[in-house]
């Protein structure tokens, strides 16, 4: 693993992928902090792992299903109770399409 020093451009890109709006101050502050964390995990290279598969969950359980029966769920009122923007029993969401698609 070569040294992963992140640039501010990297930080900006990651921020976008993570749906976080970052101020230029934050981008400047985070970049060396993120780099430090990424560099610290370099130590993983020292442990050879060619002989094993990854473990994604430790219980050994697979394919746990339940019967497709409809059970009691939220009322519309309960579901909307914490929404800051609602209208006629709907959640109000931000625009998905911009007027000119420069997003």
């Amino acid at each position, binding site marked *: 693993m070569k040294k992963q020093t992140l640039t501010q451009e990297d930080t900006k890109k990651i921020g976008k992928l993570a749906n976080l709006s970052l101020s230029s101050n934050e981008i400047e502050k*985070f970049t060396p902090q993120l780099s430090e964390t990424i560099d610290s995990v370099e130590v993983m290279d020292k442990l050879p792992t060619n002989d094993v598969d990854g473990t994604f969950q430790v219980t050994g359980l697979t394919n746990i299903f339940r019967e497709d029966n409809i059970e009691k769920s939220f009322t519309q009122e309960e579901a909307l109770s914490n929404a800051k923007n609602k209208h006629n029993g709907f959640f109000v969401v931000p625009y998905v399409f911009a007027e000119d698609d420069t997003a």
Partner: protein
Amino acid sequence: MDFLLFPMFLPKMTLHELTITETVKGLSEKKFSSVEITKELLSRIEKFNQKLNIYVTVNDSALNEAKKADEERSKNKSKLLGVPLAIKDNFLTNGLRTTASSNVLSDFVPQFESSVTKRLKDQGAIFLGKTNMDAWAHGSSTETSDYGPTLNPWDTSRLPGGSSGGSAAAVAADLCVGAIGSETAGSIRQPACWCGVSGIKPSYGRVSRYGVIAMASSTDSPGPMTKNIEDGIFLLEIIAGHDVRDATTIREDKWSYKSGKKPVIGIVTDYFLKEAQPGINKTVHEAINVLKQSGYDVREVSLLDPKFAIADYTIIQRAEVSSNLARYDGIRYGNDRTYFGQEAKRRIMIGTYVLSAGYHDQFYRKAQKIRTKIIEDFNRVFEHVDVLVAPTSPSTALPVGSTKGVAMFGELQDVLVEASSMAGLPGVSIPCGFAGGGMPVGMQITGKMKDENSVLQVALDFQKLTDFHLQKPEL
């Protein structure tokens, strides 16, 4: 030092000092009422919470619930009827504000109950309130809470540990009879250690995560934090068990404690760090000696260098965090993503990075393979011993302010518990002495997957032989 003490003759205890076992007994024998003990705890909370900042939300229905419990007592034989508990603020409690100590959820009132709190309520428990934590459980100090740090009742210039710091402090300060916390890597055991209380981190899958605000879904483990292990077992028996709403729960309907032949103890030499705070290693060695003197077979074992577990946990946790926190968009509940604190943003970003195209194999997939290596390493030592013991933390409680500017504070503090968390193993931290000027030292006991019994047997024996768990801070 000889720790073989006879049961101490204790003066008449005040209600807030009682354990769960004592409270249940006292209530059923009508020595006092649920209203009396709840009132006393609520007034203690009023007295101390402003300074200690333990509760984020106090339940203003608690006294009414206590009244109802007292009224029902003759016909309701629930195991926890009218017993007041503290719940970490990442467990969704229906109708009671739940924040994960984050500004994103500052006004979130859940419309459903987590499985853990439902099981406690079904047994008649009362919740005094929701306890402070590191925001989103991202930490090992409770200093990254968006609502200010909780202070350690043993020394209020110090932190209680985290992320279940509020719950640990509530138990230590007798601001509840018992508490619930959760652990992703250290978040029950480490604050239990720093606050001198007993914390049980069950096997991953032993307790349902349904309704727990997710951090790292492959390691999150809810568990009890109590004044002694006997109480912890009592709560664990109530909350443990298969839950159809959490597909990762172990497929055993119930769990109850069962003792067996004396487990063989493996003392993990690599976990007695050279750079540990003076007094820690010595204190834990002495504690292990107590067990040895009482007839336990103690052998030395060696585990993989914990530095691999640190890196492993760093990657996997942040990857899973980035996915779990993607849902917080302020649309259906809570505030938008600009309300995330610095630590949350950093973790989300690292997680996003290590899962992204071009980096996924090098970081995330590699980390999952390291997890396999860690599991194999434990399996190797568990062929010769039944439980592993070591210090829980390389230090006693650190001062307020210690986390500022330290990028990976949590990971470094949890160095001794990360490996077992990655492997999903059950473990406890119990108080075993004092160091660093009278601050609690904790000993961790870890067992094989699903073998809570061996771990708890050793812990119970230790608490029969010593009285560290009876020590309380002076507030």
